[in-house]
């Protein structure tokens, strides 16, 4: 392992930024619910469900500093199986920048610059992301350390300044009768986004104090959960029953927000958040994927494949997620299933590794 180190604060802000970015774009969870409040409950349940996942992965990754999750997988499961697992998770890692870039491209085309081809946004952002990823985790960490507070402030200020348009009455009713079945889809959607946290398997070995990794990951998870709930409440009480019809929730909220009667141009803020948040998120996962590939195929330097990965990601998101409907279909269908499968796989593996290691420790040799 090389000497790159990130601090605890950088880890938390990185995770928060990564998780909040999809929330500022297409918030698909709120589109698939029948009544908006279910989305709110789904947010809470999804966050709660993510806790064991994050805990187990963090435990498995932070247990032995200097050895990544993948190295341990390959050690415990043997090389061929371990490599397959590595490839699986790498593909999962690459799906996230794919989605984020597709989402950003569609959002820009829908809301801000309808005449510009989506290609431009995706390629420019993929270039920036690959560039940051190539310069290594410490640079990405520094970026997110600055951007995450900015993004969180932007989101909170949008929520705060649209308060005079809110009607908290829309938070009722909480359930339609016989509505427990309605929860399945939104909860799995929320949870699917939280599986992005599996990236801590790559991050924790680089933490300057690996032991704090578990606590920090959980802290980031809870911060995200709280922010998402706040945003969700703001959106539901502002848009009421139209919440699930809106394509870009945070953007719509930004267009509603105003300070007094003179400042009502928060769209600019959203645009900057989209650009920076998406580029950083894509950078994190391109870096993680590059690192994972390096691990799986024992490459000397993994930074060199950042650009090719950026290329691949932008190519795929331009061919497969180039319309809003395709993006929507993907993010509510295959993505949820794939991420759920990955979550099960990673959780299982983490458990298995933990048990195997403990057995090894108890009877050495």
């Amino acid at each position, binding site marked *: 392992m090389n000497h790159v*180190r990130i601090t605890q604060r950088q880890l938390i802000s990185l995770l928060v930024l990564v998780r909040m970015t999809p929330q500022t774009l297409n918030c698909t969870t709120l589109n698939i619910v029948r009544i908006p409040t279910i989305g709110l409950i789904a947010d809470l349940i999804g966050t709660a469900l993510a806790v064991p996942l994050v805990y187990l992965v963090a435990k498995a990754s932070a247990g032995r500093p200097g050895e990544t999750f993948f190295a341990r997988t390959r050690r415990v499961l043997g090389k061929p199986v371990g490599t397959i697992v590595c490839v699986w998770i790498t593909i999962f890692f690459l799906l996230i920048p794919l989605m984020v870039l597709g989402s950003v491209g569609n959002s820009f085309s829908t809301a801000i610059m309808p005449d510009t081809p989506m290609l431009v946004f995706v390629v420019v*952002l993929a270039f920036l992301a690959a560039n940051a990823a190539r310069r290594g985790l410490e640079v990405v960490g520094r970026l997110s350390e*600055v951007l995450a507070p900015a993004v969180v402030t932007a989101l909170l200020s949008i929520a705060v300044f649209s308060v005079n348009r809110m009607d908290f009455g829309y938070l009722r009713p909480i359930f339609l009768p016989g509505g427990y079945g309605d929860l399945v889809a939104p909860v799995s959607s929320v949870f699917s986004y939280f599986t992005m946290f599996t990236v801590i398997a790559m991050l924790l070995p680089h933490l300057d104090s690996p032991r704090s990794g578990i606590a920090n990951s959980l802290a980031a998870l809870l911060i995200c959960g709280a922010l998402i709930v706040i945003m969700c409440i703001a959106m539901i009480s502002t848009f009421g029953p139209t919440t699930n019809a809106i394509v870009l929730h945070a953007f719509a909220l930004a267009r509603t927000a105003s300070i007094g009667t003179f400042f009502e141009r928060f769209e600019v803020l959203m645009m900057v958040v989209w650009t920076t948040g998406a580029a950083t998120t894509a950078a994190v996962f391109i870096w993680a994927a590059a690192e994972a590939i390096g691990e799986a195929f024992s490459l000397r330097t993994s930074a060199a494949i950042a650009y090719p990965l950026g290329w691949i990601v932008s190519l795929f998101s331009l061919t497969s997620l180039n319309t809003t409907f395709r993006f929507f279909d993907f993010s509510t269908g295959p993505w949820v299933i794939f991420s759920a499968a990955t979550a099960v796989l990673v959780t299982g593996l983490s458990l298995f590794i933990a048990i195997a290691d403990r057995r090894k420790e108890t009877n050495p040799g």
Partner: protein
Amino acid sequence: MSVFVSREISENEISIKSAFGYSTDLVVRIIRSGENPRFSVLIAHIDGLVDKDLVARSIIRPIGMKDTATIEMPPSPAYIYDDLRNRLLESSEVKEATRMADVLLHISSGDCAVIVEGVDSALICSVRSWMTRTPENPTTEPAIKGPKEGFTETIRVNTSLLRRRIRDPRLWIEETVVGEVSKTDIAIVYLKGIANEKVLQEVRERIGRVKVDSLQESGQLEELIEDAPWSLFATVLTTERPDKVAGSLFEGRVAILVDGSPTALVVPATFLQFLMATEDYYQRFTASWFIRLVRGVAFLVALALPSVYVAITTYHQEMLPTPLVLSIAAQREGVPFPAAIEALTMIFFLEVLLEGGVRLPTAVGSAISIVGALILGQAAVEAGLFSAAMVIIVALTAIASFTIPLFSLSNTVRILRIVLTIVSGFLGLFGVAAVLFGLFIHLAAMRSFGIPYFEPLAPVVLPDLKDAITRAPWWAMKQRPELIAHDNVVRIGDDQKPTPPRSPQKPSPAGTVGQQRSSQQKQQKGNASNPDEQQSSSDQRPSSLGPATQKERQPRSRRKSRR
């Protein structure tokens, strides 16, 4: 030409003269002195670089007065040589040189060479004296409050300016020579014990690597040792102000002085330093807190205003309030160019005006500003070539860019502004945001002599944020920059916040008085204009600089190996 100084004085004469190609400013004189035996002494120096009176008084007169007759034993040349060196020569600094090349170097540096016949070694007397400029108010970094002296072209004067501010033996000065032909003196100045040894080693290595034939200005050295040669951003801080260099030394930085250049180089440099003026440290913190914020905003304005204007008016009209959008549209009606071209043309004219103003004598320079700003601007709007809004935007940009204290950063901003404007013409605000983000990546990845360039913003170093975008009061800035001053980070003692005596009836003798006094001292330490008191302050509170207490404090200072 022989390699070493010869015992034959005539041979030496020929060597020296031929080495200088019989240059007319070379003075070589052979003095024959003494009664019995007579001895010959060769004196060589360069006219104009030496104090002629001093040569006559302290070299020629003692040689002439050397009375060999009184001595019983006929003295050998070696005896005369020793006698001259140890007793007679009335020069403050006498060195010996045996290699002819060294002798020549000293002669061309303004020393006087004294060669006694029969001795294969030369005495080098320091009699340097040439026209120097007295320290003046630095023209590129003027300050309203604070010392009014700046570096001169003479390295000795410059080191003396620093010595006067830091009267401590721990101010170490290492000298080396760079330049195969110009043989320019370079001084590496630092505070031993505060400066980071790694940085220091890096500086030594990089300067040692430099192979050039001549070095005329510190700017040349800067380009040869900087970290990111292709970057638009300077990774070496340049300044003309001794107080600024002294302050930087106290932060653990290393200064490099170059003979012949009134500009000192300070490394490692961080981005925010380029936005700081020395005055920020001398004014009360409330004022500098505000002024730094203003400057920060002005920096963003200077960088991005034209591009944001172009982007919003050509791509995102919905983001303007209705009255404003109609007003701008009315102004633009009839303007023949697209807004991006209009902005670029105006920026180009502005740059031409600026450059013209710099090149012209001051008297004519003001005429340029009148013709350029007033007549051209107004006429262009009236003629319908440009819109009034664009003139306002570009003028505002120009004024904002004048608030940037350091020239190297304002040059960077000038270039980036054009890049941003072009991109905004293509891609609107998305382009602006993307370019700024790319810049951010670049800045976050850059280092200056091992220190992250964008520190303390990326990585965030919480204690250092006290002296970053704004400045905390002096009594709150207890630590030197954490990543730079690695080993000795405490600079101000505890409880330095001045408070009035609690009750006038019972003044607590030690506490309040001492506190008030030390706060005064801090103020002075900032501008370092009163080293006496500063010395006494460290006497009173040895905790601040002393190495012994420094060890005590080390565990308390939060040091992390952050990169």
